[in-house]
């Protein structure tokens, strides 16, 4: 068993998550895909930690989790807000970013 396996898996999951972000329109699902990407990153970090024999990678993964949690909190709040005002959770409900 070599670290490469874990890394490949992480890469695969990351790519899947990225595709999801690009393809899905439901903001919540998009958000979930982002989470998937973060988790893929965490997996790689954990694998690196074991590879190098120190805990810094795990620390990093820990921080990623914390920040992700914060992100989820704020992100979901934003989605709720958005839904309240637009009655939709679709990310391209309107081309909002265009003036």
């Amino acid at each position, binding site marked *: 068993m070599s670290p490469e396996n874990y890394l490949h*898996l992480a890469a695969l999951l*990351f*790519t899947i998550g990225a595709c999801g972000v690009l393809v899905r*329109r439901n903001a919540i699902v998009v958000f979930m895909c982002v989470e998937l990407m973060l988790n893929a990153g965490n997996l790689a970090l954990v694998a690196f930690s074991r590879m190098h024999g120190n805990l810094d990678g*795990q620390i990093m993964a*820990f*921080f990623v989790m914390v920040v992700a949690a914060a992100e*989820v909190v704020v992100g*979901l709040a934003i989605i709720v807000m958005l839904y309240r005002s637009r009655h939709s959770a679709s990310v391209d409900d309107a081309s909002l970013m265009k003036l």
Partner: protein
Amino acid sequence: MSTLTALAAETTTSGGEAAQFWILAPIAVAGGLGTVLMRRAVHSALCLAGTMVILALFYLANGAYFLGVVQIVVYTGAVMMLFLFVLMLVGVSAADSLKETLKGQRLLAAACGLGLGILLIAGIGQASVGSFTGLAEANADGNVQGLASLLFTRYVVAFEVTGVLLTIAAVGATLLTHRERIERNKTQREQAEERVRSGEQLPPLPAPGVYARHNAVDIPALLPDGRPSDLSVNPTLRERGQVREVHRQALADLAAIERRTAEYQGRAVTVTPPRRAGDAAPATDEGNDTPAAEGGGNGDHGDNGDNGRDNGPDAAGEEARR
């Protein structure tokens, strides 16, 4: 669980870990794919939760016991549940149409994903990834102790900052979702006046159900001419496409009653069985999903809503005249 941890603790990888990896990794990938491809957000969330649990196992296998537990408790347990709560709050369009609206988006996304994947894998291949050093030494005092000693020494500033970040996130989320009342509440009188002024819907909305034979909230009431009143059902249900159609039998009964009444009173029959949008569809639970799933659900219901609104003032006017 103990076998797994024991496996991971060893510096050299064992065949057991390989087996575990090759069994769990495909499931994790399948979960990821499911997250992306499932039409319903709830299903996506469940798939993601599955993937996360498997990842937690991988963490454990890699000697990150603390993280593995945290992954399950915090991530899968708390964060994903938060997702589900929000889904219940928001998830009216429970299913996402998979029809792409942006031109070339899917193609570009695929290209990007493919390119990114190839590049990542190429990068991994190029990097000199050695073998596992193993965490036996680092975890000698225990994984949690090791993490803690690092966290509270070298990474203490970052730790404090993330703490602040979390606090801010919590406050921010409360602030965002909290609706500040800028002006005072309208009194009932004012509300009533406003309603009269707008002239949209003066009397209370009609109650759901048909002739007390049904009192379910998902069945629209019938108007005097036999059409279902959209105002009588909760709009959220309508959004979700969970409105039950009025049964054909009930309509036929109504028509029969009308006919009999007409015969009794000796006047010409004016009421014909009304046509309905949902005539062709069977009025079952499964069938209710269909219009919504076709992606036109919103529009259709919107039209009905308009009809209902058009009827509203008429009815109100008649009532007022009486």
